[in-house]
């Protein structure tokens, strides 16, 4: 099967500011792609470009092979979206939302919806604008998971959740991928979430993709070495991904630990370190 989502050379600018620079990556079936970057790095703009909420200056974004999902709105039946804030209509209750979505989605699964609502302990008669941020995000995830979607686009969907709720949401996402062979694009600031469930990692900085790789491959071959200036010159430039200058020594992120010169001790890396290195380090 082809990729559920394909982004190729997406570029976008607001005025003179170029916010997306040839953004390219895919979401294959059965994958969870962790989309990582600082605030303002271009994650939300990427989501908006994919969903056609803003125009693109260049490049293509294809969902299930279709470039313009607004031409055939039915395609959106199979896409679940959660933004970084609760965007459901404010004065409605969960019961009313269920009635609305029955009319809106051909494939609305009322039983799945109420199973998730109950498992997230959400009140069904309370207006959703009275919900806390955590409750709102759980409700948004419940909606996204209740219409047989094949692709989930989640922009900071786990933000604002307490650890136990986060665990619950992540379990539901894993269940979704396992059951439907679906794909998830998950942007998050919480590295432990990405580390826990992502199969692929995409790191973006200033609108540019710095890393686009399978997670297992990254942790198998990427490493950090601390070197002095002389040792730095001995490193193969091809494998140097980023480095940080600590005055007396450099910490260097390399993409292939096997290519390191003998005698250099490499350290295992965490998702947090990888992300900080790529977004804070220099080439």
């Amino acid at each position, binding site marked *: 099967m082809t990729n559920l989502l394909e982004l190729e050379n997406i570029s976008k600018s607001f005025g003179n500011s170029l916010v997306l620079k040839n953004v390219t990556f895919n979401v294959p079936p059965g994958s969870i792609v962790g989309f990582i970057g600082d605030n303002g790095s271009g994650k939300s703009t990427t989501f908006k470009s994919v969903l056609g909420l803003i*125009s693109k200056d260049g490049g293509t974004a294809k969902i299930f092979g279709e470039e313009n999902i*607004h031409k055939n709105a039915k395609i*959106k*039946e199979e896409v679940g979206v959660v933004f970084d804030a609760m965007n459901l209509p404010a*004065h409605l209750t969960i019961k009313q939302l269920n009635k609305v979505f029955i*009319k809106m989605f051909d494939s609305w699964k009322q039983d799945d919806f109420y199973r998730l609502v109950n498992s997230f302990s959400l009140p069904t008669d309370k207006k959703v604008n009275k919900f806390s941020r955590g409750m709102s995000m759980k409700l948004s995830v419940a909606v996204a998971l209740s219409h047989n979607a094949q692709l989930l686009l989640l922009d900071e969907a786990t933000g604002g959740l307490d650890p136990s709720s986060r665990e619950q949401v992540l379990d539901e996402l894993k269940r979704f991928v396992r059951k439907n062979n679906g794909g998830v694009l998950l942007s998050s600031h919480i590295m432990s979430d990405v580390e826990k469930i992502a199969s692929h990692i995409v790191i973006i900085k200033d609108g540019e993709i710095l890393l686009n790789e399978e997670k297992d491959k990254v942790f198998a071959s990427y490493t950090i070495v601390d070197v002095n200036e002389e040792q730095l010159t001995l490193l193969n430039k091809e494998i140097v991904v980023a480095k940080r200058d600590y005055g007396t020594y450099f910490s260097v992120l390399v993409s292939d630990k096997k290519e390191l010169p003998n005698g250099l001790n490499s350290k295992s890396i965490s998702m947090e370190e990888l992300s900080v290195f790529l977004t804070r380090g220099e080439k």
Partner: protein
Amino acid sequence: MKGLLLTNYYLVYRSILAYIGLAILVSGVILYFAGAMVSGIAALLIILLMTLPSLEVIKTESKSGYDKYVLTLPVSRKNIVQSHYIFYFSVVIIGAFLSYGVIYAYDLFSDTPVDGIFNTVSIGFFIVLFAGAMIYPLLYIFGAEKSDAIVLGGGFVGLFVHFGVRYLLNQFTLSIDPSLYISLVYIILGIIIYILSYFIAVFIYNRKEF
């Protein structure tokens, strides 16, 4: 489309019910104290008050971010504009019937009869429909934050356009019942302008960025 209309309804039905009560009360007070000569104002007021909550739909959608989220649901941008226009039009129709009913009831129970109830209501219908035709495209361009000024402006422009239409109609003399002819002109003209506005609004909304 049904889902969108149902959302609009859930968002404002309480306000609409409250405004129905308010419209009946205010128009009743006006008619009681000022008599049949202000029946035109009472008719307009009823339809206008009825439609105010339906204009709140866009404001509420924008405030909660639903205007962005709804684009991710299996509906087209055209459907979204359609839902706003159909909902507003439905409320105007209900308002027109209510307006007719209130003035008819006053006519039945008061000593001073009201002439040309249909004509009076059709003018109110035209003004409010014209206001809607102005308001929606402007809301899509300038955003819901400016909604109060836009709604107020739309209402006033509708009122002035009505004076213009009335002036033009007075230039023609036809051999049919002038009351019926004027009413029909107002209703048909209002609907035509509203439909034209819908196409303009779809054009604007299709290019809107979120």
